[in-house]
């Protein structure tokens, strides 16, 4: 036992020494809600392209859509002495403590899409509420201010999804009071679940005119359901994000539109901000700096304006 302890101590000393020697390279961590989505992949590509050629090592972890896991992983980045963290909080409240802890140790945190409750370096965000409003305007105009629409929602408490829905509902209430919202159900960000929900919408509402899914995956699910029900040409389907596959479906006329954001650009913006913080070009302020990436309504008419290299 005593020997083991001695060895452990020796190793520990050794290890710490190594740690000091390596500290020259900057380390940036990327922690999205999950890595398995086109959006988070696009962010990652954007970040990596920006960091290329810099003296920076880069690590991405997968929080598997669970706030508790994301908090643990934040701790790990902090304990491993990362110099900056790019985070997509699964929940604004749940990650606040972690962000506070990191900032307290002088590690700038740049959040993506979801802000947290306490100030940190920056939040590079799509304008969720604004873009939701934009989608509302588009649908309302296309229906000439009359008809029935449904919403495929995000999980309760997922701030980005909730913001999008709020924006959409605000547009409806303000601009098109005669449009009825006939249903809203949680699609859990998930294509399969969205198919299931869209099926029930289609069955219950024989004259459904449009559906707004708060992300593209769910819009694609809604499209599959509508297509197999033979009502694709009667129901307008709008998604959100503007991932590559959805843009293609828009070109084919199967999906009506999406609120496109250049996710590469967004990732790159976050990475650039992190580098600026590390080089001292930017200083931490009292408040979180909100960097908004403007949305763009991609429809069959406008989708050609998005260049191939901007599609993700």
């Amino acid at each position, binding site marked *: 036992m005593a020997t083991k302890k001695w060895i452990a101590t020796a190793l520990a000393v050794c290890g710490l020494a190594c740690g000091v020697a390596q500290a020259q390279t900057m380390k940036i961590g990327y922690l999205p809600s999950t890595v398995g989505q086109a959006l988070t992949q696009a962010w990652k590509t954007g970040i990596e392209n920006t960091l290329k050629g810099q003296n920076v090592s880069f690590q991405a972890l*997968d929080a598997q859509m669970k706030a508790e896991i994301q908090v643990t992983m934040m701790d790990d980045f902090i304990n*491993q002495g990362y110099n900056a963290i790019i985070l997509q909080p699964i929940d604004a409240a749940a990650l*606040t*403590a972690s962000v506070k802890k990191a900032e307290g140790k002088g590690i700038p945190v740049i959040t993506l899409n979801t802000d947290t409750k306490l100030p940190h370096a920056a939040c590079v965000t799509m304008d969720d509420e604004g873009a939701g409003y934009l989608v509302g305007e588009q649908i309302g105009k296309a229906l000439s201010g009359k008809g029935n629409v449904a919403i495929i929602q995000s999980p*309760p408490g997922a701030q980005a999804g909730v913001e999008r829905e709020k924006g959409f509902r605000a547009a409806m209430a303000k601009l098109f009071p005669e449009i009825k919202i006939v249903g809203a159900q949680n699609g859990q960000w998930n294509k399969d679940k969205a198919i299931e929900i869209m099926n029930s919408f289609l069955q219950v509402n024989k004259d459904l005119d449009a559906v707004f899914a708060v992300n593209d995956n769910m819009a694609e699910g809604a499209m599959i359901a509508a297509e197999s029900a033979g009502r694709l040409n009667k129901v307008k389907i709008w998604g959100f994000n503007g991932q590559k596959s959805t843009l293609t479906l828009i070109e084919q006329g199967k999906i009506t539109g999406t609120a496109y954001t250049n996710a590469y650009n967004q990732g790159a913006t976050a990475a650039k901000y992190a580098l600026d913080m590390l080089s001292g070009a930017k200083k931490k302020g009292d408040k979180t700096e909100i960097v908004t990436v403007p949305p763009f309504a991609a429809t069959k008419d406008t989708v050609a304006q998005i260049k191939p290299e901007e599609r993700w």
Partner: protein
Amino acid sequence: MSVSAIRRLILTGLLVAIGIALSFANPTFLSLDNLMTLLQDASLTGIVAIGFTLILITAGIDMSIGAVIAITSMICVNFISYTQLPAYVYIPVALAFGCAIGWVNGFFITHFKLPEFIVTLATRGILAGLALIVAVKDDQGFVKNVFIEDELFLSLGETIGPVYIVTIVFVLLAAATQFFLKRTRAGTNVYATGANPTAARLSGINTDRTLIGVYMFSGFCAALASIFLAARMMTAMPEFGIGSEMDVIASVVIGGTPFTGGIGDIWGTVIGTLFLALVKNGILKLGLSPYIQPIVIGGIIIVVVVVDVWYKAFAEKKAAQAARRKAMQGKEAGA
């Protein structure tokens, strides 16, 4: 040597070995910060595992622990959002609620002689749904995860020196529970009830009361963990704890408390909890895919249980041989 002693030795050895390996692979592993966060994580699971150990000693199971965590955290944020009551008032209320859920579990199990699994699975479902219903909502009815700003409540997520309060509580609770099990009559009753309920009843033990008490304790532990989790995350979410049952069960089983009842103790669970936390942290530190984590944990459980069964058979064989030798000698003397 007893099976549990052997296992404890092996696990402790492995614990040290993995620690050494990890400190080689990743120099930050042995940093104080990392060890303390690791202990913080382990303590949250560990507190629940302490209660669950008693459940397994009675040969029961409690599937409701995760949902108790969810509902307890919801109770706390409701108090925080809608009342001005101080933490020292509503925390005991939340803990009492955990006990009450345990009482309901125990009551249905003992009074209606229902299987533990079914009863606690039902309460799990009910509580998980209830947690969503009582969750704090915004003005449009969306679940809003409240950012907790109650200083006193949040101080539970802080450290004393380098050690998180939750870790201190875990250690104290573990020591107290171990002492309770081994040195009090009520603790002895827990073992007796699990090993042989009929014999326990015949010996004058009120096994129903013992079982209800054990389920109440399990509910209490889950509620306690929930409060520390909420304090750590500075928020509460209706999905807190849901799905954490597996980690808890794994910790207890790795620690040497089998499903068959009558056997087990808290030190084993403490080691099992640390072991599990270390493995999880190790997977993260080595940069391995987090998806292999459940595979690794599952594998460890199988190995541990197989070694157990193997060693138990070996020990029994030796004991039987010794008994036979003794019986033979007795026979010769008697005949």
